[in-house]
């Protein structure tokens, strides 16, 4: 990648951050914050995007960002109040800005009509445009048009001399931040010299004595007398990208030529006398002072660092690392863990005493590798905040489209999850939120009639619970209309009309493939995918989804997901000479069955009595096609597992070998998805073991969904209930 492309990529990464900042700022303002810092942060975000876009010649982006910035400036300066409707326009504009950034990133031209429409919307909302400003395009191309009349009047002043030269006195005083962001005053001074003739005076008045001098401080100021035919704003433009880091004043000098030699001489003498005043101090004590100062500054810096580590200033404490590098590291650590396990197994096989130095050293190694693994995983952990924020846009758009009024409340945004999990959450979440708005939340009039507030409420919450992350989407809408769901399922032939179903069973019907209650294909949620796809993608992440609904009160979807897709705690079991891993999260208990507890239900179906409840028995070896015959339970072990909802199943396995953390290896990378298998792992002996997809295996055994494989295996058996 060439340097320019690399810089551009960095710019787009920063744009993403700025957009998040922008949106969260606007949402905070919408939530009633009136802190000046918030609006300043919002303004700065747009400003930075505009600045970078200008540097890369991204015209559409600059044009839009300029108008946006101008409107935000009016809010910032308090010229217009940050009312609900203004903020709504601002938020929509933020969406447009995000779209434009994306177009620029993908190097496609955005729709000019769309931009113009949004620009006009912003202008009318903020009372921009109109009589005092030229048409949009012209204003964007030449933002200083409104200064032209002044220049014309100056022509008259100079008695029609023909050139509109005007003198300005510019005072430019950088602050510390100016230098720390690697700006260079000389560049700006030269830039000014390009506009016309300059007379530059450095103001040393604030320069302290050497003893008090902070080598990184800002003490100099420049007074520039500039004679130019450029407008005042052209001068200000030079300082556009440093305006937060310095004090700038530009004033017009009326009348005579501003080249005031007297003033120059006066300044010069002032400067030199100041410098001399600073000199007489002997060098030795100065050095001591400097040494002391350096020491105290180092301590201060250390204290600051500690403070920033506490989260006060995260910007300084982070680094940007290529994801490939982290992934490589995770792979290597995975190898390390496997290797360490192999080594432990060899040592155990060699019958070396556990108390020997070798075995103890290995124990330490095991602990160490596990710690390294945890720390490496933590690198990839990210808060769910960005994805939650993206949902606020989904809510806005969906609410606009359906004409409903909806508010989104996010909780637990700081909850951290592995980046790979987060990335794959966007689609299911988007779909579920659209569904909640489209089908869940009622129209405003219906809400009022039901005695609810006009604005619907959707809550998106994330939390950690026993080693997993739980994400909950709840709404205060009408809840699931069970009558309608049931009749729709019957009409579609998904269930038997006479089937006895609990409320929970009916609710779960919406997860069936091919189910959709919407009588018309709505614009949003009906995009050819249903809740079955949501369920499938959650399951593909090793997660589960459950639903609870109260008619008239609303529905809640609860997803429980693994924190990472890289490792898993599992129970190692053997089945028909094969080794399988059962995810520990699914297991309730393990037990040795007694034959008197096992009952036949006709056909191959068997149940086992566990503390007075009957649980269906599933022979894993049989379901996976490892053996033709059903296993004899008396030689087996039962692994009792918890399914989605309250359902339980008893899995029949030959023996339990142990319990350990395994590194998850994808089967899809080099092969494809295998029904009933979630992934693979490599065991201590170097062989591959398969990780059981408990829910899929149970579904197969129940015969509910046995997707016809395009290439049926000869060993595959039809399992009939």
């Amino acid at each position, binding site marked *: 990648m060439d340097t320019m492309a690399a810089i551009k990529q960095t710019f787009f990464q920063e744009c993403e951050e700025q957009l998040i900042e922008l949106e969260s700022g606007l949402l905070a303002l919408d939530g009633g914050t009136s802190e000046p810092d918030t609006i300043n942060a919002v303004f700065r975000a747009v400003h930075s995007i505009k600045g970078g876009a200008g540097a890369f010649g991204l015209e559409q982006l600059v044009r839009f960002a300029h108008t946006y910035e101008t409107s935000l400036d009016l809010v910032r300066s308090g010229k217009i109040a940050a009312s609900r409707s203004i903020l709504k326009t601002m938020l929509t504009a933020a969406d447009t800005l995000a779209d434009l950034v994306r177009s620029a990133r993908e190097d496609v031209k955005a729709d000019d009509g769309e931009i113009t429409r949004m620009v006009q919307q912003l202008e009318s909302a903020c009372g921009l445009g109109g009589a005092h400003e030229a048409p949009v395009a012209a204003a964007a191309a030449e933002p200083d048009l409104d200064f032209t009349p002044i220049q014309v009047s100056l022509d008259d002043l100079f008695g029609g001399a023909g050139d509109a030269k005007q003198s300005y006195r510019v005072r430019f005083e950088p602050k510390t931040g100016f230098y720390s962001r690697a700006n260079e005053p000389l560049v700006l001074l030269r830039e000014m010299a390009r506009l016309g003739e300059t007379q530059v005076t450095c103001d040393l008045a604030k320069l302290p004595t050497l003893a008090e001098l902070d080598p990184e401080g800002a003490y100099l100021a420049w007074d520039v007398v500039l004679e130019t035919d450029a407008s005042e704003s052209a001068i200000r433009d030079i300082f556009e990208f440093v305006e937060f880091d310095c004090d700038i004043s530009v004033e017009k000098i009326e009348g005579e030529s501003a080249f005031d030699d007297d003033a120059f001489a006066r300044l010069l003498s002032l400067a030199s006398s100041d410098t001399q005043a600073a000199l007489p101090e002997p060098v030795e004590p100065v050095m001591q002072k400097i040494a002391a100062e350096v020491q105290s500054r180092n301590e201060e810096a250390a204290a600051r660092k500690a403070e920033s580590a506490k989260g006060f200033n995260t910007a300084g404490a982070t680094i940007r690392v290529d994801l490939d590098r982290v992934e490589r590291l995770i792979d290597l650590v*995975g190898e390390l863990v496997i290797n360490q396990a192999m080594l432990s197994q060899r040592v155990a096989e060699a019958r070396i005493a556990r108390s020997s130095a070798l075995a103890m050293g290995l124990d330490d190694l095991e602990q160490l590798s596990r710690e390294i693994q945890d720390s490496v995983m933590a690198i990839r952990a990210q808060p769910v905040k960005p994805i939650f924020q993206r949902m606020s846009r989904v809510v806005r758009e969906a609410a606009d489209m359906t004409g409903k009024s909806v508010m989104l409340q996010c909780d637990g945004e700081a909850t951290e999850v592995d980046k790979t999990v987060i990335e794959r959450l966007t689609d299911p979440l988007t779909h579920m939120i659209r569904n909640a708005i489209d089908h869940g939340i009622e129209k405003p009039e219906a809400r009022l009639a039901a005695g609810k507030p006009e604005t619907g409420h959707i809550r998106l919450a994330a939390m950690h619970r026993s080693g997993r992350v739980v994400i909950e989407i709840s709404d205060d809408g009408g809840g699931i209309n069970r009558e309608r769901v049931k009749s729709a399922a019957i009409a579609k032939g998904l269930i038997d009309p006479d089937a006895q179903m609990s409320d929970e069973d009916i609710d779960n019907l919406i997860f069936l493939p091919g189910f959709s209650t919407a009588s018309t294909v709505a614009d949003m949620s009906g995009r050819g995918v249903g809740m079955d796809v949501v369920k499938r993608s959650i399951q593909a992440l090793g997660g589960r989804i459950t639903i609870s609904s109260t008619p008239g009160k609303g529905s809640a979807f609860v997803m429980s997901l693994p924190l990472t897709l890289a490792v898993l705690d599992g129970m190692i079991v053997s089945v028909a000479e094969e080794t399988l891993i059962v995810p520990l999260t699914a297991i309730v208990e393990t037990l040795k069955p007694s034959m008197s507890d096992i009952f036949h239900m006709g056909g191959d179906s068997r149940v086992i009595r566990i503390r007075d409840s009957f649980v269906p028995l599933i022979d894993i070896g049989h379901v996976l096609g490892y053996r033709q015959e059903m296993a004899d339970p008396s030689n087996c072990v039962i692994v009792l597992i918890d399914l989605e909802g309250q359902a339980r199943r008893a899995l029949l396995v030959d023996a339990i070998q142990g319990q350990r953390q395994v590194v998850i290896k994808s089967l899809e*990378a*080099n*092969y*494809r998805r295998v029904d009933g298998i979630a992934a693979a792992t490599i065991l201590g002996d170097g062989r*591959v073991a*398969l990780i059981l997809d408990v829910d899929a295996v149970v579904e197969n055994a129940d015969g509910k969904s046995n997707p016809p494989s*395009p290439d049926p*295996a000869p*060993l595959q058996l039809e399992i009939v209930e």
Partner: protein
Amino acid sequence: MTEKLESSSTRELIAFRIDGREFCVDIMQVRDIRGWTPATPLPHSPAYVRGVINLRGAVLPVIDMATRLGFKPTEPTVRHVIMVTQVENQIIGLLVDAVSDILTVTEAEIQPTPDVASELAKTFVRGVLAIDGRMISMIALDHVLPAHESLAA
């Protein structure tokens, strides 16, 4: 023996034996050749998928080429080899009897597949070579793995 042409269109091929017959693939597709190690069988998979093995930390599917090409299934021994090949973005192991030769041929020497009815021949054989009176079939690996299920997710 055919004359070797010094041209850019020469290709290097790796020849291997299955059930007494000879086949070859482009050498650029072959990553590694290793001895047979027992594979972990995959449930619900076609008979020609022997299972998966651990290739330096990656999970590698192993295809029994004999079964795939319609011959009787291989009963692997330590003398059998797995050719590790790259097909598009995936790495696949091919279980064969032995690797026999490295051939350098020109495009002109590759003859079109004789018009036979066999569906398997049409799917896999991309051309034949006559070398020292033997016939070596050139195999295309694109269809070796079972067809991908399109999972809408």
